[in-house]
C-alpha cells in the first residue's frame, strides 16, 4: 500500500502562476522527498526535507513539513511550461533500511 497521498490529483494553471501540491502520510517518518516525473521518463529528485525541519527552499521550489498533521506541501513559484510533469512525494519511515514509499502523484499542467 502507498504511504503518501497527494492532493490534488491534477492541477492546471497558466505560466507565471504558482502551483501548490499537498501530501499527507500515515505514520512517523524520517524524511520526506519530492520527485518529478516527465511523461515517459524516470523520476528526478527535487528536494528532501527531514523530520526536524519545517521549511526548505530550492530555487523556485518551497517545501513545508508539518509532522503534527503528517502533511507536506510543495510550492512552485512563477511556473513555466517546462514544469508540466507529475509530482510525487515519497516518505522514509523511522525504521532503518526502509526504502521510499511513493504516493500516487499530482499531475501538473502549465499552459503558456
Amino acid at each position, binding site marked *: 500500500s*502507498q504511504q503518501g497521498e497527494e492532493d490534488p490529483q491534477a492541477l492546471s494553471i497558466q505560466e507565471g502562476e504558482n502551483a501548490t501540491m499537498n501530501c499527507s502520510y500515515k505514520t512517523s517518518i524520517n524524511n520526506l522527498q519530492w520527485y518529478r516525473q516527465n511523461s515517459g*521518463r*524516470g*523520476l528526478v529528485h527535487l528536494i528532501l526535507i527531514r523530520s526536524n525541519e519545517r521549511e526548505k527552499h530550492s530555487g523556485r521550489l518551497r517545501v513545508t513539513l508539518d509532522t503534527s498533521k503528517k502533511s507536506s506541501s510543495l510550492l512552485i513559484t512563477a511556473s513555466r511550461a517546462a514544469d508540466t510533469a507529475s509530482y*510525487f512525494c515519497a516518505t522514509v519511515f523511522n525504521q*532503518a*533500511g526502509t526504502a*521510499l514509499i*511513493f504516493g*500516487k502523484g499530482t499531475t501538473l499542467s502549465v499552459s503558456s
Partner: protein
Amino acid sequence: EAGVVQSPRYKIIEKKQPVAFWCNPISGHNTLYWYLQNLGQGPELLIRYENEEAVDDSQLPKDRFSAERLKGVDSTLKIQPAELGDSAVYLCASSPSLAGGQETQYFGPGTRLLVL
C-alpha cells in the same frame, strides 16, 4: 557523470514468455532498487540490494519474478512466465548510502513492458 542506465527501453512480449530487464547503476552507488510503476500510480518497491545482497525483497512476487546483482554492480530483473497484469514500467534506481532510502535516489528512464 553517467546516470542510471536501463535496457531495453521498451519490450513487447506475449503472455507466458520470459523477459529480462537490465540496470547499471551510477558508479560507486552501493544501493540498487527495482520499482514497478503502474499507469497513474507511484512507483512501488520490488527489491532493494545493498551491494550484492538482497536486503528487502518482501514485495517481489517470487513465484515468477527473480533478480540478481552478482558482483554488486549491475542487476537483472526477470519475469518468467509473464502475465498480462505485468504490463507496467520497471524502474531501476540507485543511491550512494548503505542506509537504504535515507538519501536521494537516482532513477533510470525505466523499461516499459507490454504483455499481450
